[in-house]
């Protein structure tokens, strides 16, 4: 990938086509098989961070027999350092709704929902206006796929898909056991496709450009582009759409302030990459995946404080349901404080490292399995900062 350079892309935020919902209308004239084939061909993987192949998810849900199916757009953008869905929803909501409608047609869903982060309540009036236009155009097309907005209430865990369904159903936002997966039992225990905001936009862009042109972007494992939320010690924080599969050193060259010590890729639940590994780190599913968050730290930052901050966040935002995540986060936090204060020997960090390994493999949900990522990557790379 070394020949890869940073390519600014303008797919996601690109202008709407002249005619409202034209791409959607054109797409809906095609057969489901045809649409699915294009998405499969494009190599699109989920943009929420986990990177499940979108076409497979849709295909499984389409094949699940049920009288009722749903499409849910996960707009509960809660990962610290991520703010790209906010921008997408503010600037190109039409593309999101179009992507959802295409999904609805392909899987045979009755209804679509957008689960919107509680803090994004301010954008509801604008979204409702756009939804009205969307519904009008669907009526013109003689199609019926209503989309409704459901509000979250500020719990980080509700970004986890099954906790999100629980929340939508009026329950407590706690992840469910898997299997069954949403493709067979999601919202209201019905087959459901749940995708990130950006994934739906990508689908629409594949429909507009065709898979061949889309595929030109990115690498074999990570096709297309990605919207990044760049923050921290950078002179140019903000939202950037970049090609996937870029090496991290190139990214730092462009966004760092010349004194970058580490980049936290993927938010608080992601991985911390230290300077010495920038060159060998690829941002993409073959390397370090991200839901969009890129936090840059320069040498003035204490990585102990960074980790302390993340662990405080998780200690509070774990749903509290399963033991490894609920108690593990408390132990990691209390543990690094004890080591820093000298109440525990430095070797206690090794004990905590073993614990973090157990947390990763035993927690009930994807979040619980990833809360220890920042701990292990920061402690591994900046151990001296933890102790002294």
């Amino acid at each position, binding site marked *: 990938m070394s020949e890869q350079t940073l390519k600014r892309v303008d797919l996601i935020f690109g202008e709407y086509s002249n005619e409202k919902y034209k791409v959607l209308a054109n797409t809906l004239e095609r057969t489901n098989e045809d649409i699915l084939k294009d998405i499969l061909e494009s190599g699109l993987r989920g943009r929420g961070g986990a990177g499940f192949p979108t076409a497979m998810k849709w295909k499984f849900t389409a094949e699940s027999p049920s009288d009722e199916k749903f499409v849910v757009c996960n707009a509960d953008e809660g990962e610290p350092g991520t703010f790209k869905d906010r921008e997408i929803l503010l600037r190109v909501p039409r593309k999101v709704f179009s992507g959802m409608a295409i999904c609805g047609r392909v899987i045979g869903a009755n209804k679509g929902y957008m689960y919107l982060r509680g803090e994004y309540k301010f954008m509801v009036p604008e979204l409702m206006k756009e939804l009205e236009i969307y519904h009008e155009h669907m009526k013109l097309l003689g199609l019926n796929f209503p989309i409704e907005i459901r509000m979250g209430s500020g719990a980080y865990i509700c970004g986890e898909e099954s906790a999100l369904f629980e929340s939508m159903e009026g329950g407590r936002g706690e992840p469910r056991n898997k299997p069954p997966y949403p493709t067979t039992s999601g919202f209201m225990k019905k087959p459901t496709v749940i995708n990130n905001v950006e994934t739906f936009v990508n689908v629409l862009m594949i429909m507009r450009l065709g898979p061949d042109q889309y595929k030109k972007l990115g690498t074999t494992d990570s096709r297309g582009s990605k919207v990044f939320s760049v923050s921290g010690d950078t002179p140019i924080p903000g939202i950037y759409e970049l090609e996937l599969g870029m090496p991290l050193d190139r990214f730092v060259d462009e966004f760092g302030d010349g004194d970058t010590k580490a980049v936290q890729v993927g938010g608080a639940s992601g991985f911390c990459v230290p300077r010495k590994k920038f060159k060998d780190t690829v941002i993409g599913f073959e390397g370090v995946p991200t839901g969009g968050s890129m936090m840059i730290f320069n040498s003035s930052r204490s990585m102990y404080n960074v980790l302390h901050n993340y662990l405080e966040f998780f200690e509070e935002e774990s749903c509290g349901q399963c033991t490894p995540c609920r108690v593990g986060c408390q132990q990691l936090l209390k543990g690094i404080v004890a080591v820093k204060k000298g109440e525990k020997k430095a070797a206690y960090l090794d004990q905590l490292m073993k614990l973090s390994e157990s947390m990763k493999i035993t927690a009930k949900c994807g979040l619980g*399995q990833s809360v220890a990522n920042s701990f292990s990557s920061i402690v591994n790379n900046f151990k001296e900062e933890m102790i002294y």
Partner: protein
Amino acid sequence: MSKQINLTIDGISIAVDEGTTILEAARNLNIHIPTLCYHEDLCVAGNCRVCVVEQEKVKNLPASCATPAAEGMVIHTNSMKVRMARKHIVELLLSEHNADCTKCYKNGNCELQSLASQMLTGDHLFLDLVPDKKYTIDMFNTAIVKDDSRCIRCQRCVRTCEELQSVSALGVAYKGNKMKISTFFEHSLFEVVCTNCGQCVNRCPTGALIERNYIDQVWDAIYDPTKHVVVQTAPAVRVALGEALGMATGKIVTGKMVAALRRLGFTSVLDTDFTADLTIIEEGHELLSRLKRALVDKDPSVSLPMATSCSPGWIKFIEHTFPEYLPNLSTCKSPQQMFGALAKTYYAQKRKLNPKDIVSVSIMPCTAKKFEANRPEMRSSGYKDVDFVLTTRELGIMIKQAGLDFEELPEEKFDNFMGSSTGAAVIFGSTGGVMEAALRTAYEIVTGREVPFDGLNITPVRGTEGEVREATIKIEKVKPEWSFLEGVELKCAVANGLAHAKTLMQNVRDGKATYHFIEVMACPGGCLGGGGQPIPTNKEIRTKRKMAIYEEDMGMSVRKSHENPEIAEIYKDFLEKPLGHKSHELLHTHYTPRKRY
């Protein structure tokens, strides 16, 4: 036959039905995977993660309780990864848990404790989190104590309250490090919809939910020479007490229990079954009188169906959930309360005792009875009808404290006075029992003949777990004074577990079903599965207790309440007639509508 799934567990191949979990498959192979949040009676939660196992070619360790077996799976239940993870999880639970075991009521009977000893968690791998927490103990309730410092957040209680009982008094509050099991606005259990059924207590793996115990108060009364301590024992206790004392499940230990109570120092050992028979007489007449008023007098104010009122959990449930149906409840007190009222009146008179010197103790399979005994309306004798209610478990503890070798005790009989009973009273301990006992008597009052069922066994009304049982009994060739009942098809329904009681009441409310008489027991299986019974509980254990109850019924020489010789005597000497003035004063009660949260 359902599809078979082949998998390998610890090197052993096994074929199981599709849908079987890894945990169940392992149990089929006698491989014991430890669990905490898992309970046979409840839906799978998969939140404690103690039961994780290693699956080859899969990075994460799946929870065996929540993961269905899949074709070709290769599972290791005791690999290095699994042992390390499991030990970590138990250590994490302990770090949040007030592990002051010697001061805990559940010491020696705690699933977390035994798991900790099994895992040898003496290492204190992690820091103690308990000092950072502001744990509270809810001690305001007269029946159940909730100690958050002992809670491991497995949510068994929450699932019990919601699924089995549809009460949802307990729920999860807050998240992350503050996550706890709580109630509506964190009120005391005393102030919310909790029915005190104690099913959560039966399923709590630790000492977080326990009965409020009155063991010391009872010992004090026994040791007080000025007190005359009478004890009554409920029907379901005698088929379960043995379990608390190391005996096999489903053993009938009536005689040994009586012997033990005498040795503990109770002045007289009496039987709640006596007042169970009395309940049948009163309740049977009440039903017939309601039917007469409805069918003959066409009195629109008569509330039918009439519902039984023996189960105090059910009483509090209906007070909260269907207050508009309170007139449908039989006004009869429960046998425990009838007994208490009579102990301080009839018994005191006969024995020439001052009622203030009598301490009335009851041994119940139930925690709700503790609340019932403390109801303000339960003082019709002029004194508190029942002073202390002990659960089966508490009696077990007292017997152990006294150093009695329970299994070696001789079989003794209840005292003569207020101690005789019938098979009809024994079956009060099982779901459908009150119904069956009432029918045995009411049918005979009306027709002069025994119920037309082989061996008096009215099997159609014998409740089963997990459903509302319905039965219709046709009344024919009645005595002249009951001519209005000729040809009437008496419609009955039986429910056990409050979730099913709710379904039953909703059907009644929505007009989907019409009945004359319904029996509801708050606990799964009836009193034999009560919240005060020995722990653990599951369907198999309850079935064995149920078989023992019906065995006890079959073994009784008198099996109809109205044939209990002491019943005739008490009406002659004291109560005069069923539903008479004195009955109303002492044996009947009223109910209070309560709020819905």
